[in-house]
């Protein structure tokens, strides 16, 4: 004892000597000294013990155990949430569904052998040696099985194996599947958008948000301009018509001509967005916006409006269509030749190639190029969808090219592009870029730019209606009483081995309604349709026209277009 307290005694002694106190006093002080030393020792012991306990507590509190770190990473990676996609009426087009996935933390697994055996009672395929070895390893986190059913989850939960748990994973679900596949697009296994609007929202903001780890489960749903009911009608009619006319493919677009909103767009053959492998088949491509075609006579809408808008051609003018048009060593024929002098409206309704060619020649190649550029037919359609094709333009613009382009040969554009340009012709001459998101008329007015005179648009509306009403008009087959449809057919010959083929056709129909104040535009295209019955022709008036009419008849009530039976356009006709 004395030995251990040496230092204290040593320091105490000089004080005692200096004070010069007697023996008894110094002896008493010695006893007090010992007491104090013991106290200090004891308190030091306590401080040490409690200090280390506190230190350890702080240490444990501050640092997270490593297992939960890996688990946290896994949870963040799998719950890549996406916002719901709704149609314009709030119907769900795409949503996230949660699936449970089974994982293990091998470090926490007490008995890998027993765990494997127990798991095998629920998942027989997990009873292998590989699983046993993985569970026996020192890893922090492993996946055992992705996307298990709630029943399986309950069964595994009931086993109560330590170190085995569940994570919920998001999986994209498209309730309407094929019907809207070309608009919504689809996602890959990691829930990242790889096509359609899904890709667009990823490119715009969602991808960055997910990278920053801020994509929570409560993202605002995204509303599209698409109407699911219209989309269903398009899909239904197009699929049925494709079988009826045994066409190779077909597509349809419905646009609001006043706002540029796409109300529906579909293409057939289609694919299931829940099975993205189908989308890889080139046969299932989006033909409405990602493919280009020579649109044929529907281009006469643009040629005629170009001629009228240039001021070089008046609607009362006449053109000689008695004979075929010889130009650049080629002869242009009329499909339904009238072999007489035709007025501008007659050229339009009889779809005269010769007459339209002569109109285009009067405007000239320069004017034509400038006009097509103005209507946006020479550029990619400026819209949100990633799958947009560039038009294929003629390399040189000779007079021959000017003539062929006027009736839609020698230039290939996407159906969406043609529909957009035709909307501008119909809505009073304002070109509005199409959109897949809701847009009001005011917003559209700010975005739109005038490309045609109002008077040209009015005359074109008259011609489109005349084409449906007049005897011999090519759009007759699309007429639906009450909805005042205006329309133009297009039957293009397809190029086979470098030559225009007589029996392979590309048919199109552009319909707009109600013609006195156009609101909607429907474009239907068929690639290589066949006659419904042998002996009938396979022109657009026989397939694309009636299909477009059916579509209008079904969607007009949905779009609140009021049918009227007093023929509002008759006075207009009488004016000419």
């Amino acid at each position: 004892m004395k030995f251990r307290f040496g230092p204290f005694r040593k320091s105490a002694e000089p004080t005692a000597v200096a004070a010069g106190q007697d023996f008894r006093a110094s002896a008493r002080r010695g006893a007090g000294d010992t007491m104090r030393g013991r106290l200090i020792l004891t308190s030091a012991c306590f401080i040490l013990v409690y200090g280390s306990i506190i230190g350890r507590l702080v240490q444990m509190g501050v640092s997270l155990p490593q297992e939960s770190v890996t688990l946290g990473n896994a949870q963040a990676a799998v719950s890549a949430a996406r916002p719901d996609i709704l149609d314009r009426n709030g119907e769900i087009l795409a949503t996230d569904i949660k699936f449970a996935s089974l994982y293990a933390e091998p470090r926490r697994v007490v008995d890998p052998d027993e765990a494997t055996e127990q798991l095998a009672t629920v998942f027989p395929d997990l009873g292998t040696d590989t699983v046993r070895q993985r569970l026996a390893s020192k890893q922090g986190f492993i996946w055992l099985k992705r996307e298990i059913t709630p029943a399986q989850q309950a069964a595994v939960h009931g086993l109560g194996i330590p170190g085995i748990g569940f994570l919920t994973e998001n999986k994209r679900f498209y309730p309407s599947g094929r019907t809207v596949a070309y608009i919504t697009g689809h996602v890959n296994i990691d829930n990242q958008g790889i096509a359609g609007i899904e890709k667009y929202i990823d490119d715009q903001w969602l991808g960055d948000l997910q990278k920053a780890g801020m994509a929570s489960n409560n993202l605002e749903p995204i509303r599209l301009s698409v109407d699911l009911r219209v989309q269903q009608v398009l899909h239904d009619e197009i699929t049925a018509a494709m079988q009826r006319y045994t066409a190779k493919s077909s597509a349809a677009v419905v646009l609001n001509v006043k706002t540029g909103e796409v109300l529906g767009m579909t293409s057939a053959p289609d694919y299931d967005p829940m099975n993205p492998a189908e989308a890889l088949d080139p046969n299932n491509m989006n033909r409405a916006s990602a493919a280009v075609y020579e649109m044929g006579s529907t281009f006469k809408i643009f040629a005629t409006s170009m001629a009228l808008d240039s001021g070089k051609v008046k609607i009362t003018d006449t053109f000689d269509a008695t004979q075929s048009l010889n130009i650049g060593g080629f002869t242009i024929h009329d499909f339904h030749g009238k072999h007489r002098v035709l007025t501008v409206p007659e050229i339009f309704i009889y779809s005269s190639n010769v007459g339209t060619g002569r109109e285009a020649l009067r405007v000239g190649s320069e004017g034509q190029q400038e006009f097509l550029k103005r209507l946006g037919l020479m550029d990619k359609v400026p819209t949100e969808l990633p799958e947009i094709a560039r038009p294929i333009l003629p390399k040189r613009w000779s007079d021959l090219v000017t003539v062929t382009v006027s009736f839609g040969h020698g230039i290939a554009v996407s159906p969406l592009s043609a529909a957009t340009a035709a909307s501008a012709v119909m809505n009073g001459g304002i070109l509005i870029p199409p959109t897949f998101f809701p847009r009001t008329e005011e917003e559209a007015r700010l975005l739109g730019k005038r490309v045609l005179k109002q008077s040209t648009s009015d005359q074109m509306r008259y011609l489109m209606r005349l084409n449906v009403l007049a005897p011999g008009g090519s759009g007759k087959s699309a007429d639906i009483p009450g909805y005042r449809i205006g329309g133009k057919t297009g039957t293009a010959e397809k190029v086979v081995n470098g030559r225009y083929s007589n029996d392979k056709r590309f048919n199109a129909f552009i319909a707009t309604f109600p013609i006195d104040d156009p609101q909607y535009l429907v474009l239907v295209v068929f690639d290589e349709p066949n006659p419904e019955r042998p002996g009938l022709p396979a022109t657009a008036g026989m397939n694309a026209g009636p299909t477009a009419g059916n579509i209008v008849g079904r969607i007009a009530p949905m779009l609140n277009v009021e049918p009227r039976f007093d023929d509002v356009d008759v006075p207009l006709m009488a004016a000419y």
Partner: protein
Amino acid sequence: MTRYINALLVFLMVLSAAAVYDMKYEAEIAAENINKKQAEIVQAHEDISLLKAEWALLTRPARMNDLLDRHRDILNLTPMSSDHIGTLADIPAKPVVPPVGLPVEQSADGSAVLPHIQDDTRRVQ
């Protein structure tokens, strides 16, 4: 005196310790309840979104179309066409209903019974 004060203090100390323990215990229970409720809320949200997805799946237009086709004989529905839509002007004016208890005029041979209508039709129309 000091002894009583001390005893009182000891008693108060024990009491406050018990109270603190009780509070802590209650706080733990409350925290547990909050966690439970939050988990329930999350689960309810998930259930709602799942049910919404199911509703969208069951009411998708393509399926409704198929159901209509299958039960055409019972439902007796036809697609709406333009002549099914009318305006208020197409509806004839409501006929005037005679008040109950008015004298009823019989035609001469007594075959038909005509209600006696007062001449206030113009006002109603």
